[in-house]
């Protein structure tokens, strides 16, 4: 019988199994019930956690904008989210005429479901993980695909050309940013030698942030873009296209998209921590798994803070700027990184370098490429200022037709 502190999940499973078989249920049914319990608990906790998350983000975002944020309901406004939930639960759900019922109603549910699905494979603590899937890394990518599908369904399910347009722009943006994201995920897989998230965390004796900082940066940027957050939040910009793909959604259906966005931001921060910052690793995490959970949460909140910082500090990009950034900067850079990391790491390992040498070499190479590519970008980004006009002569009293013709000839 494992100890609770050293193996919480194992302990609970053992205890519940004993309890239920003691009640006379067959072992298969017990296994199924335990699987169901575990599968039901995690999404529930995630959804309840979102309540806190929304409050946290609103407070932080407000403070960054030099205002207070929610502070009326409860100390520091903690109950604000509950009040908002109460409002949104009782708002009228208007279903416009002519909508396709199944895509229209499925979209918000699928949007939340897709984000929650990622929690199933996320390693939360040394022996606490939903399911130790051997291909967890690409499972995350597949779950992201469901999210894009949800947006597409929302766009065409509403019988509204603005929603359709907004939906397609959103999906085109998400697809574009998924390319560098997927390729950036190759690098932790390479360094760990596995697609299993638990193994990737377990092999981060040195956090991969130090071994592949440029890849980490690119992954972070693409995750911010995938969540549809500022500065990439063109698709929900209030002044353009009304509200994009969720124009026709009211009440809780809209609330679900909102929840999905916040949860996506947090989940992708957690993914970043798992892939590049060592997940739950920390002193004594192995003996006390719950401590590992604490480390994971602390690190995730640090990354989430940076996400909110991006939102509060940066202006929104235009769509052509976003797409240029993606295809002309991020994709070539990440491909170059895969190239360089694969070659350099293999050469150093074959030459028998210890971990420290590997770390230093890879870090230096990354910094060199980053510096080099930023120099390249600087040269291309700032177009030379054009001369707008030559000096205009002052208006003179006697305006003759010939003189005005000459004056019209101002070169641009």
């Amino acid at each position, binding site marked *: 019988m494992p100890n609770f502190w050293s193996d919480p999940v194992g302990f609970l499973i053992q205890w519940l199994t004993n309890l239920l078989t003691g009640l006379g249920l067959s072992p298969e049914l017990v296994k199924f019930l335990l699987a169901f319990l575990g599968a039901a608990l995690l999404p529930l906790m995630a959804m309840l956690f979102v309540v806190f998350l929304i409050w946290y983000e609103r407070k932080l975002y407000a403070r960054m904008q030099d205002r207070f944020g929610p502070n009326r309901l409860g100390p520091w406004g903690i109950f604000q989210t509950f009040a908002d939930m109460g409002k949104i639960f009782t708002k009228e759900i208007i279903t416009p005429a002519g909508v396709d019922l199944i895509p229209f109603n499925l979209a918000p*549910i699928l949007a939340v479901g897709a984000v929650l699905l990622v929690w199933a494979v996320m390693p939360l603590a040394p022996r606490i993980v939903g399911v130790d899937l051997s291909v967890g890394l690409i499972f995350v990518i597949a779950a992201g695909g469901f999210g894009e599908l949800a947006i597409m369904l929302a766009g065409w399910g509403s*019988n*509204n050309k603005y929603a359709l347009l907004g939906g397609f722009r959103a999906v*085109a943006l998400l697809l574009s940013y998924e390319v560098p994201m997927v390729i950036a995920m190759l690098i932790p897989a390479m360094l760990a030698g596995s697609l299993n998230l638990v193994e990737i965390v377990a092999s981060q004796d040195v956090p991969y942030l130090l071994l592949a900082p440029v890849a980490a940066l690119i992954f972070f940027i693409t995750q911010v873009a995938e969540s549809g957050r500022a500065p990439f939040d063109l698709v929900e910009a209030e002044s353009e296209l009304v509200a994009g793909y969720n124009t*026709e959604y009211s009440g809780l259906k809209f609330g679900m998209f909102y929840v999905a966005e916040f949860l996506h931001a947090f989940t992708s921060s957690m993914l970043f921590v798992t892939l590049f910052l060592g997940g739950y690793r920390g002193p004594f995490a192995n003996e006390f798994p719950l401590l590992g959970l604490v480390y994971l949460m602390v690190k995730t909140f640090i990354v989430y803070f940076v996400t909110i910082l991006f939102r509060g500090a940066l202006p929104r990009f235009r769509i052509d700027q976003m797409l240029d950034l993606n295809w002309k900067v991020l994709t070539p850079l990440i491909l170059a990184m895969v190239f360089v990391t694969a070659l350099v790491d293999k050469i150093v390992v074959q030459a028998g370098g210890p971990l420290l040498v590997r770390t230093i070499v890879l870090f230096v190479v990354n910094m060199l490429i980053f510096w080099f590519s930023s120099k390249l970008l600087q040269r291309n980004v700032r177009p030379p200022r054009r001369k707008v006009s030559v000096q205009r002569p002052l208006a003179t009293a006697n305006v003759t037709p010939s003189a005005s013709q000459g004056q019209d000839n101002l070169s641009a």
Partner: protein
Amino acid sequence: MLDHWLYIGLFFFVAMLLPGAAIFIASILAPKKPNPIKSSPYECGIETVGESRIQFKAQYYIYALVFLIFEVEAVFLFPWAAAYNQLTLFMVVEGLIFVLILVGGLLYAWKKGALEWR
């Protein structure tokens, strides 16, 4: 491993059930007062003009296509990356040749202006 997928199946079921149940509760709690004006599609507050017909840009298709190509490339590269620790330098270079060929494709698309948003 089938246990794993059973868990994931149940998880997905619950993950879809929770928002579905929430929306169901909301549809019971919320008032229902439909009228034709509210139910008409939204168009900046004016009446809708014409059918729901949009001019679809071919650019969307190109982005989806380039994405598909790179996704398939990534699918080939994931096993290569998983086996990275056991590969020799020659095999690593082979994988990089694969990447290089597709970088060539990306450059072609770039030069042809296929990646511009018009």
